[in-house]
Structure formats: C-alpha cells, structure tokens
C-alpha cells in the first residue's frame, strides 16, 4: 500500500522487538538492549511506520525514561531525535501524509475496535475511521462498548487467563452483535486475542489489521 502511494519502503532485517513485552512485564533491564537496538536500526529513517499502536506507545511512554535511567546522554539524544519520526500506521497516513483515501477497495462490512493504546495513549482519534470510511465498498458499523479493553494485556492473557477470557467474551459478543464480516484494529496483539475467542466459539468473523484492508484494491491499481 505504501509503495502504491509512491513511497520507498525499507525493512531492516536486523530489527526484532521494541521491548514492550519485557518492559511491561517488569523485565526492565532486559528491555534496554532491545531499545538500543531499535534506535540503532532506525536512527536514519525519514519516517518509521509501526503497524502496532502498543509498540508506539511503548516507545513514546518509556524510551526517554529508560535512556535517562541508563544515564547515557548520547543514547537519550538519539531517542529524542528519533521519536518524532516514529508513527503508528494510521498516524503516518492521516497526520504525516495528510491522506484519508488511499485508493483501497474492500466490499465488506467492517467494525473497528479502538485498541486501548491507540485510543488512550496515542490518541489517534478518528484517523483510522477516516481511512476506513474512504475505502470503496466498505460498510463501517459501530462496535458497541468499543472503548472497553479486549482483555489481551500482553502477559496478562496468560498470567490472568480467566479474567482475560471473561473480558474477551464480552468483547467478542459485541463484535458478533454488529453482524460485521471483519473486525479490524491497529494492533495485531488485540486481534490475536479477539480471533482466538471468535474462532474457538466457531464464529466466522475475520480479524484483519487496518493495513490489510487498506492494501486491498479489489483488482484495481
């Protein structure tokens, strides 16, 4: 999709993980080398596109604090220089590139789950729904209680599996209630959780990241 819009996309093969799983679970020391690695890998990029709101939230909320705690001023300067160039996928399109219509076609009924970190930490607002409303053939239906967490929460899903499942059951019931064929979000982790429950319950509702929908052109372009 990005190439379709005329951009050059690079994927540094050396990249791995932003460190969120370690950091949020309390393994702060273990996350530091991953942060250093990320900064090193992307320091020269014009814009970094991250198709995961929670990873961007990790970067914006914690990278500076971690660099400060390391007492490494050069590292801190690099973090400060890089962060303004890091964009969550919908932010990149709407805020950085000023786009709403990316030329996508997707003739299906879709509901949108505003993942917690995109909603409450990145404050992406209506950027994703602007993009969805511009997709040809796509019918967007409102998800009831959409701002409620899906119950994933990283290691929460395995440390508190029963509560996680209770939350997921409520979320999936809302998804099914919309009658949508597809549920989308800005985080594959939440979608993995939502899918896990839907599929176990025998539902045919599909889970797709927003990028997967916007990449579809229905044969055109």
């Amino acid at each position, binding site marked *: 999709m990005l190439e379709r819009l005329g951009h050059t996309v690079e994927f540094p093969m050396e990249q791995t993980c932003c460190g969120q799983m370690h950091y949020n679970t*309390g393994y702060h020391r273990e996350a530091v080398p*991953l942060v250093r690695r990320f900064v090193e890998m992307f320091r020269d990029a014009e814009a970094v596109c991250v198709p995961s709101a929670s990873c961007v939230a990790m970067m914006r909320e914690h990278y500076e604090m971690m660099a400060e705690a390391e007492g490494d001023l050069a590292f801190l300067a690099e973090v400060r220089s890089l962060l303004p160039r890091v964009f969550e996928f919908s932010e990149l399109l709407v805020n950085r590139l000023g786009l709403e219509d990316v030329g996508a076609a997707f003739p299906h009924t879709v509901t949108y789950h505003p993942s917690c970190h995109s909603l409450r930490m990145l404050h992406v607002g209506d950027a994703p729904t602007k993009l969805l409303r511009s997709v040809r053939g796509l019918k967007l239906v409102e998800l009831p209680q959409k701002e409620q967490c899906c119950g994933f929460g990283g290691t929460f899903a*395995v440390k508190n599996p029963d509560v996680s499942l209770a939350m997921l059951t409520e979320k999936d019931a809302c998804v099914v209630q919309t009658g949508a064929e597809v549920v989308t979000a800005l985080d594959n982790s939440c979608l993995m959780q939502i*899918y896990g429950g839907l599929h176990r319950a025998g539902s045919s509702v599909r889970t797709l990241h927003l990028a997967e929908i916007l990449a579809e052109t229905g044969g055109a372009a």
Partner: protein
Amino acid sequence: MSIVVGKTSKAPDFPIAAKAALKNDQLRRNVAHATNVIRSKRALRVEEMPDWEQLRQAGSEIKAHTLAHLDHYLIEFERNCELAGGKVHWARDADEANRIAIDIIQQYSGAGPGTEVIKVKTMTSDEVQMNHALEAAGIMPIETDLADMIVQLGNDEPSHIVVPALHKNRFEIRDIFRDKMSKPELTEQPEDLTAAARSYLRERFLRTKIGISGANFAIAETGSVCVVESEGNGRMCVTLPEVLITLVGIEKVIPTFADLEVFLQTLPRSATGERMNPYNSIWTGVTPGDGPQAFHVILIDNGRTKLLADDLERETLQCIRCGACLNACPVYRETGGHAYGSIYSGPIGAILSPQLASLEHSRSLPYASTLCGACYEVCPVKINIPEVLIHLRGEIVREDQKTLSGKLSPENLAMQAAAAIFQNHRRYEAAQRLARIGQTLFERNGQLTNLPGMAGAWTRSRDLRPIPKQSFRDWWKQRSTKGDA
C-alpha cells in the same frame, strides 16, 4: 512497626481469587450493573465541564506540591487545628492509630463494657482494621454509612472504595436487614430498606456519645477537616456526639481552604456522578456549646512516608479515593473488589496496597491489569496508574531475580531466552523456523489449540493461528530478490 492494610496479608493471589469471583454470576451482574450506572452518570457530569482537564491538572498539581512539602503542611495543620481547640495525635502505623483511638474513647467513657461509638465511612479505619481493634477492647463500633452498615451487619468486607456494598443487590440487602434488625416482613423496595436503616440508625445517633470519622481533606491553613457524603449520616456523626475522633491519612492534607474549590468539583463528579455532594461538612476545632466539645485528629502514616522518596510512587498518594478508576477498570468490572484481597481494590488498590504493605503480601496485584489506561483517563488527580503498575512489576522482578527460585522460574527463563533471541535477528529468524516445525505437534485443523507450558493458559480457552509457512521476512526477501515491487 507493623503496616497493616486491611486483610491484605492473608489474601490469596489475584488470579486465584478472581477465578472464584468469576464463577459467581450474581456478583458479576451486581458489579456490572452498579459500575455501569456510576460510569454513565460520571460521564454526563464530566462532559458538561468545559474546564475538566484544567481541574484535573490543578488537582494533580495541588496534591503534588503538598506531597513535596508534606512536613510543612502537616505541622501547619497541627498548629491551626490545636489553636482552634482540637488535639492532634500522630500514629506511625495501624497499632498506634488503634491504641490512640481506644485510649481516647476509654478516657471519655470509662473503660466499662458496652461502650458504643458511631462511625461515618472511613477507608482509613478499614485500612488499620480499627473495628476489630475496638471490638477487642470491648467497644462496639456502629457503622452509619448505609453501605458500610450493610457490610458490617453482613459480616462482610467492603468491595469498593466509595460504594462498599456494591457487590450486593437489594434482595441480598433485604435478607441481611431481615435477619439483623429482626424485621421479617421487610420488602426489597428501596423506600422500605431506607426507612428500616433510618429508624435503626436514628436511635443510635441519639444515644451515642462518641463519633469516629475519616476525612476527605484536612486543610492546613485553617486546621479544618472536611467530609463529603450523600446520606447525612456523616453530618450526624460530626455534630451530634460529645467527642469526635477523626482519622486522617497524612496524604489528605491540602494547603489552603481555596484548594477545596478544585476538589469539591472533581470529587463528587468522579465518585458518584453528582455535581455536588448532598452533604459537605467542614469543621474547625471546638465551638463551645455547638457540636462535639472534644475533637481529636489522628494523623496516620501506616506506610505512606516510604512512598514519598520516589517520584512515581509518590503519585499514588495524590489519590482522593473517588473510586472512578474502579468503575472504569475492565478487570474490576469482571471480578468485583474482593478478589484484590485488600480494602483498596481496583487499579488504585493494585498500586496502593502493595506499596503500603510491602510487595510480599500482594505481589499478584500489579499484574491484575491489562494496562488499558482507562483508570488514568478518569483519574481526577491524574495518577498515571499504568506507569506505577509497570514500576512495581519491575520491583517484583528485580526482587525475584535475587533468589535462586526466582532465577529458575519458568517465566524468568522464558523472558531471558526471549531477550537473547530478540538481541540478534538471526536467532530471531531461527526461533521462528524452529517454532514453525515445533508447532506441527500441536496443530489441529489448522489451529493451535493445546500448547504446553505457559502458552497453555492461552490455548485452554482461545485458538491461535499457527505461524504461517512463509514469514513476512521470507516474503520480503523473496520479493526484493525478484525485484517485485
């Protein structure tokens, strides 16, 4: 010194307690209903405020400033309270607070048996388990807040900071009243329940000479104490008795009377979705011939000062106990308050209880959150609860890693392995390949449904798509070499 926070030390781990709570359908219906009602009322009363964000910011700054100069403001409060005829006592922990209260009660009532005290809702009293201490000393505490009374009569524990009996519906409350007030005919109609409580309480208000209250705010500038409430029982408790004992956590002090302006707007809206509390009682020392003629304030530390040293931990003490984070929390809404094993439940309880009572007793609480941020969003004093949770998780892991069993725990080993894999992209790719081979053992009809170890907690109730045959990396490499762009 012994720091007590309710019954925290005896509580089971959160996931275990939560599992039991999740099986109680009635409880879950009660909690969901009550939190939904308060949440929508709150939203209505917050939306109508054009300066809500500024009020939050102001509240946060007033509290942060006060906590940074707590020594100054506490002394100022003591001086002004005593100038107005009050007496201030300092309690380092629960035992001291309880002993001071018992001494005061016995000084006025004699040490005879059957002494009664009336109480208006105070979380601090529950925190130091004052009712148990009073009962052990032969003093009968009478809770006069309707919900606290329900909890007390039902031999229960509070499950919410603001609405302690939120887990009970009116049918359950009717049964408690029928039993404990000897009113077998009582119906579950709210009017009947209220009338029953009213006549039960009125008698006790009029005959009891000593009152115990908490404080929402203690004002340094004037030495005044403030309680906000909805039922009028608080007004009775702070005006009718001859002797009034007020328990104040040291973080409850605010510098000036004018500072109340901010909190009296944010607290009722956040707590109960009201523009203003029906009763706002502010009293200063002793006024001859009017109200209690002896006024004692017990300033309680009970673990609070050790939070002052750290910027992030100190934020916890900004809390004004509005309970908005409980109502907003998707975890609390599933489990109710008892699963947290502490009188402070929900998100604020998950950070407050372990910090006050040391992590030993409540290590599972900082993990009882998805870090969804709903708590932070509604907090009227902007406590970044998710950030504090992550900080506490860091402390737990650091402590664990100092022990051999911690080092060898499956979680630590998995996290160390993952860290090593993520530090090198070749290892990362190799791990992907390995997982792709390994997963075939657990694949059924194109799904992973029965993974071993920690991943089993996932697949017990959720399916998982297998790693695809071609990874994104492989696809990217392939299209790059083909020049397919």
